[in-house]
């Protein structure tokens, strides 16, 4: 039973991290630039959810469409301010400009909401918690299950957007080859702004999902951008399925590695078992796994291999 319990926790955490990493990859593909403000957009989404919850007293699920719209507008603004004027400059200029956006968001949140941790409303209900459910001998919070469901729906919706809509096809064309997309008449600049909007909307959704359970403070973004970056490196630079797989792997390390002695009691016989399976060592192991993946598959788990013809 503990295995199933841990699986629910991994899926809930990994699904939310996946949304963060997805937004990161979308912008990476569309512009070739790393958006270092993606983590701070997650934080901004968390605070927008807190503000909406305070004013409207509605469950997170009801607030989600409005939150997505607000965050999409913020993403478009970030594109217009921090990317479009610099798109012809070297990539470092965009790195710096998105870092600057992140710092502005952090300090803006500090000014508007203060520095103390706050919690967004749960997806279902408006109280501080969301209740528990029991199934198959597992106790899971309603919020965790709702996070998995909402993240899965958002990822499916994103897939539908890319595959079944003209807008999505144009976004993909822009991501694959901007010059050719421009040559065939696709409004590339608008597509890039649209990509920033979609990425920020995903970040906002992640912010709502994460900030109910794990709270939000103005400095939360730093942790999320690091996880998104690692997820993308693990999954394959620019790979959408890879980003989700990478996010799930991070969540698995955070949840399962420290619990290994519970899953496999024989491990308790190891000398200093508590030390070896502590949260700290779990972080070290995750990063060793990242190094191993980079060594064995430099393009990541889902990255296309690079080869030279003989």
């Amino acid at each position, binding site marked *: 039973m503990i295995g199933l319990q841990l699986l629910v926790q991994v899926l809930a955490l990994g699904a939310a991290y996946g949304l963060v990493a997805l937004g990161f990859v979308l912008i990476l593909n569309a512009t070739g630039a790393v958006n270092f403000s993606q983590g701070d957009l997650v934080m901004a989404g968390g605070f927008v959810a807190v503000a909406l919850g305070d004013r409207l007293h509605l469950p997170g699920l009801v607030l989600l469409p409005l939150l997505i719209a607000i965050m999409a507008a913020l993403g478009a603004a970030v594109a217009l301010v921090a990317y479009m004027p610099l798109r012809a400059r070297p990539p470092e200029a965009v790195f710096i400009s998105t870092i600057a956006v992140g710092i502005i968001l952090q300090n803006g949140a500090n000014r508007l909401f203060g520095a*103390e941790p706050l919690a967004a409303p749960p997806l279902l209900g408006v109280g501080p*918690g969301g209740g528990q459910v029991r199934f198959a001998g597992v106790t899971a919070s309603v919020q965790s299950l709702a996070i998995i469901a909402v993240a899965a729906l958002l990822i499916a919706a994103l897939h539908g957007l890319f595959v079944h809509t003209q807008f999505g096809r144009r976004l993909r064309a822009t991501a694959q080859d901007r010059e050719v997309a421009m040559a065939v008449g696709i409004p590339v600049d608008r597509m890039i702004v649209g990509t920033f909007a979609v990425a920020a909307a995903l970040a906002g959704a992640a912010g709502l999902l994460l900030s109910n359970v794990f709270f939000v403070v103005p400095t939360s973004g730093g942790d999320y951008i690091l996880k998104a970056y690692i997820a993308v490196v693990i999954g394959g630079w620019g790979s959408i399925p890879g980003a989700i797989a990478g996010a799930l792997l991070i969540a698995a390390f*955070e*949840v399962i590695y420290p619990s290994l002695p519970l899953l496999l009691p024989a491990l308790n016989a190891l000398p200093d078992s508590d030390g070896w399976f502590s949260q700290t060592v779990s972080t070290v192991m995750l990063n060793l796994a990242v190094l191993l993946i980079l060594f064995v598959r430099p393009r990541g788990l889902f990255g296309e291999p690079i080869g030279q013809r003989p």
Partner: protein
Amino acid sequence: MRANRLLPSAFFLGVVLLAGWRALAATATPNIPVLVPITGFLAAEGGSQRNGALLALRDPPAGVRPQFNVTDTGTSPEGAVNALERALSDGQPSAVVASMLGTQMLAMLPIALEEKVPLITMSGTADITRKGNPYVFRFFPTDSVVKGAQVRYAIDAFHIARPAVIAQTTAYGQSGQAELIKALSAAGITPVYQDALDVSVKDMRPVLAKARAAGADSLLLQLHAGPTALLLKAAAAMNLGLPIVAGSGLAQPSTVALLDPAEIKGVCAETGSSPISAETPAMQSFVARYRAAFGADPDGFALGQYDATMMVLQAVAHGAGDAAAVTKALASESYPGLAMTYASDGHGNMAHSAVIVCYDGVSPIPKIARHYDFPADSP
């Protein structure tokens, strides 16, 4: 005739002006800059520190009219050093309300020594009062005091014998964990489980499940505010059912606001003081003034910094005219503050008391379960 009428008026005006001039001459105007982190990862605690100082500076004792500016030090040592140098360039301060961040304090200490300016702080970093610097005064109980109280209460109230100790990997967490182990060891108790968590750890269930599997009969925590709330939420969801004595992170009203009161039923925490528990009329007045001024509940950092700033202002009111006299007063006199009576142990540690607060599962305001006073020369 007209001159006769004017004469008394002119005389009266002269008397008023003379009295005003004498009163002005008798008013002390110490310069007390407030250099605290109000942005960055310590912004919540730094904000409390600033608010406590401002409450004292805006309502000083009679005969004192302090000059002050608030400067955000951020969280880098450079930010603190720049802020202190800028404050010094504005004129010699009588005292400086200095950052509670240990790394910033360590960077400011040499400047304070060179300029002979006392720093009053809430920093818990042990090293700042171990460097032999006579210009540092800490108004928050050291880890040895609060952790000593935490262990004593756990033994007295819950008769613990097999505790699990869960701390943070930060300097705050490690220092507190070491003191917890020391205090437990002094009582002949060895923890059955220990873990240190990075502040980014989100899922607390694995660590709680391992503590339970190790046979722990209680949890002793030394976690920052957010992780404390995360862990207590997880413990409630798991129906852990073990006595928990948390660190001061829980005693901050903003932490409790993240939790349903039922989730912390029976949970206790150590802290230097708990102003919102307001045991005395003076404390109730402080809480009311704080709420009116800042629209929030005060925590122990706000109260400690208020007491520290008031001790400096009282010293000025009693004739301490410059930084040297204020330093001497801080080093040699005791001050009955709202939270406790403060007196230096010879190293600048001014606070030697701690309280244990407990939550009843209904109200977010804790009740003070026990006071612990430690002699100034103990630990």
